[in-house]
């Protein structure tokens, strides 16, 4: 079986090389066929891997290293990409998949351009396939086959984390085709309206899954790690945030190219950089230069190859840009105070924000190289990333109704008054009534400002309230995404500033207080799962008339010799009551269990906001038939 898969992977490499040659020669038809054929054989090849995992074929080295017969089926299947080689196979498959989808869906009426885009995509696919086959092959046999596998990292045995990598890869790799479009457009010297229409669609096709992928990863970290937080500024998290920020900048810049044929060179550059950041994310995660739960098989040689690939693609694309970029001129004149100016500000801020994240992520690595240790964490990002983005978001509602070319800003006094009133109201409410810091109160005001601004803009576009449902899905997409940012900010600000956390140690039958709740430890028992056993606590939580039972667990996975935390979460409507079980402690001769208890107010808004951003992106993809 696996040999057939191995053989088909070679066929896929051949097909992507053919796609590259036909494409760069300008043969749209054959490049498209090669793309579809390549994806077809690679899909079959990937299925042989999935099959080996599903039936626990331990004569396959990768399965023996990463699976176990006692694992539930979902995690056997998801285990295919829960390791380095398998995830690279997924990466290659998705690269080929985007080529095939593009071959089937692209309709610009420009044969040579489409062929060249497919050709560049073929080059990227061939690179991924060659890396897979020659530097990290998942198709190797193990002889003699062991009776049992080593198991999957138990932290990854979780439904959210089964779908997190495929989603994230759809996003990362989606930018490969945006990259290909930019390269083809630059070869032709035509980055215009037609190009931008196509590029915008594929940018959204990458941005939406990337958004959902990041949200899934964050949600997993929230309930599985037991630390009560949803974003830790971990280098691996940052690695996915950077392409997201560049991708968000691209989504806004490509609109200017589509509507006005301006920003052509800049849009092409962003399209290239978004993919380079995606590969850099893969490099950071896969090379083992970072210490993280995501860094599975650590192999510096592979890191070096990925780094060289990154550099080769970078030199190729930036060289193309240096050659063709200066020829790409804007078509229409514009003033600073115009929609172009506003979107330019958006882009500058998003790119600078991505650069501060890059600096914060790479600095500890550079410091380590000079022999010093340095940890860059939340305080750094709170001081750099947050104010920079806040600046952009304050301007968003004001500037989003500016006209192309030259905006009429007579209304600015109204906006200033509205903003001033909002700030005053929330400052008084926050400091006086809610007893939170002024910064937090202003953060909430910013969220409300964004939501109000988005609704205002929707009404303006629809002209009358009755017509809001007949505006294009694209306007709705923008509205939802901007509302999503507002909700996210309110949730993030409230959750980070008003989160309550405490530690209690309870004997069985005893009660303690946390976050206004009375917690009674009824019982701690042992239970067993398919490939784990656990201590499970039964906590009754009472507050006023509300009563609930929390059952946090501490699981132990013998195959991996590793414990994990299974938190218990009760949604109160205004936030999550969250409990994690710790170790046993003997205090004054009495056995007690220690619990970390959190109350995370409005945390659902954080996720709702991000989901709305993704949903907005999805709506923007919907094409309206006229």
């Amino acid at each position, binding site marked *: 079986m696996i040999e057939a898969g191995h053989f088909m992977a070679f066929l896929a490499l051949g097909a992507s090389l053919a796609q590259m040659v036909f494409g760069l020669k300008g043969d749209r038809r054959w490049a498209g066929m090669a793309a579809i054929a390549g994806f077809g054989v690679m899909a079959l090849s990937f299925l042989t891997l999935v099959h080996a995992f599903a039936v626990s074929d331990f004569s396959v080295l990768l399965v023996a290293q990463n699976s176990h017969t006692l694992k539930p089926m979902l995690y056997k299947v998801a285990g295919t990409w829960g390791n380095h080689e398998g995830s690279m196979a997924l990466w290659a498959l998705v690269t080929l998949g985007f080529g095939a989808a593009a071959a089937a869906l692209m309709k610009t009426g420009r044969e040579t351009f489409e062929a060249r885009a497919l050709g560049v995509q073929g080059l990227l696919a061939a690179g991924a396939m060659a890396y897979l086959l020659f530097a990290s092959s998942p198709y190797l046999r193990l002889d003699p086959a062991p009776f049992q596998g080593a198991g999957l990292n138990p932290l990854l045995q979780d439904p959210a984390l089964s779908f997190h990598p495929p989603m994230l890869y759809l996003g990362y790799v989606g930018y490969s085709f945006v990259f290909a479009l930019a390269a083809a457009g630059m070869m032709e010297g035509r980055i215009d309206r037609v190009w931008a229409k196509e590029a915008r669609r594929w940018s959204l096709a990458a941005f939406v899954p990337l958004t959902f992928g990041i949200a899934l990863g964050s949600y997993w970290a929230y309930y599985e790690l037991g630390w009560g937080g949803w974003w*830790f500024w971990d280098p691996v998290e940052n690695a996915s945030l950077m392409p997201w920020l560049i991708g968000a900048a691209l989504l806004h810049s490509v609109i200017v190219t589509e509507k006005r044929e301006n920003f052509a060179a800049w849009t092409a550059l962003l399209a290239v950089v978004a993919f380079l950041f995606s590969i850099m994310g893969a490099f950071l995660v896969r090379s083992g230069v970072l210490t993280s*739960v995501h860094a599975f098989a650590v192999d510096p040689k592979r890191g070096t190859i990925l780094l060289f690939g990154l550099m080769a693609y970078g030199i190729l694309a930036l060289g193309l840009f240096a050659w063709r970029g200066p020829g790409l001129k804007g078509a229409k004149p514009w003033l600073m105070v115009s929609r172009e100016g506003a979107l330019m500000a958006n882009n500058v801020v998003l790119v*600078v924000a991505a650069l501060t994240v890059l600096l914060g992520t790479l600095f500890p690595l550079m410091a380590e190289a000079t022999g010093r240790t*340095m940890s860059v*964490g939340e305080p750094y990002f709170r001081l750099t990333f947050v104010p920079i983005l806040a600046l952009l978001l304050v301007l968003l509602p004001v500037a989003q109704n500016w006209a192309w070319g030259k905006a009429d800003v007579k209304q600015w006094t109204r906006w200033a008054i509205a903003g001033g009133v909002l700030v005053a109201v929330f400052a008084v409410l926050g400091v006086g009534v809610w007893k939170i810091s002024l910064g937090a109160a202003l953060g909430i005001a910013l969220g409300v400002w964004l939501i109000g601004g988005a609704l205002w803009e929707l009404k303006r576009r629809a002209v009358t309230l009755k017509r809001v449902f007949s505006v294009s899905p694209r306007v709705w997409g923008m509205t939802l995404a901007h509302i999503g940012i507002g909700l996210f900010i309110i949730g993030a600000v409230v959750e980070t500033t008003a989160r309550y956390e405490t*530690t209690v140690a309870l004997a069985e039958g005893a009660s303690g207080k946390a976050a206004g709740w009375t917690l009674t430890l009824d019982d701690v028992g042992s239970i067993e799962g398919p490939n784990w056993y656990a201590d499970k606590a039964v906590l009754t939580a009472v507050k006023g008339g509300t009563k609930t039972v929390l059952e946090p667990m501490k699981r132990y996975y013998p195959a991996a010799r590793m414990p994990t935390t299974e938190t218990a979460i009760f949604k109160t409507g205004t936030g999550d009551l969250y409990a994690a079980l710790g170790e046993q*402690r003997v205090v004054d001769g009495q056995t007690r269990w220690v619990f970390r208890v959190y109350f995370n107010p409005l945390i659902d808004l954080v996720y709702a906001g991000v989901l709305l951003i993704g949903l907005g992106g999805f709506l923007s993809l919907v094409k309206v038939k006229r």
Partner: protein
Amino acid sequence: MHLPHSHSRAGRSIRAAMRARTRRLYTFAIAAVLLLAAAGLAFVALRQNADLFYTPRVLAEKGLPKAGREVKVGGWVEPGSLTYSDDGATMVFTVIDNSDSNIRVAFTGIAPDLFREGQGVVAIGEFQPDGSFVARQILAKHDENYQPRELRPEAAGG
């Protein structure tokens, strides 16, 4: 010689060119100001992030760091030193190295899975004026098969 004025074609194109030039100037100025501001913020933020690592020996030689400065403390957990306070919510233990001095560390929370007396430990937190240490986060060596999740930076923050 006739100067181009605004209605003439030449006048318009000159004005458009000037407009383009001032716009580019503005663009670069805004981008430069933002980048400088970001660089400044990053510089300030990074200066606060340089890790200071204290073992009991270093503490004895250098004395206490500035009050409120977050530092790391490392060494071994002295066997038999682990006690609990706050009804068991806080663990208090002594960190030793091969010098004569030691550091009392207090931590409120769940101990990492491989926290043991006699084992190596790293605590992140602040020294108190009396020389004791209040940890915000404790790192311990984990199973050798996997990267320690406790080594994620800012694990307790976020």
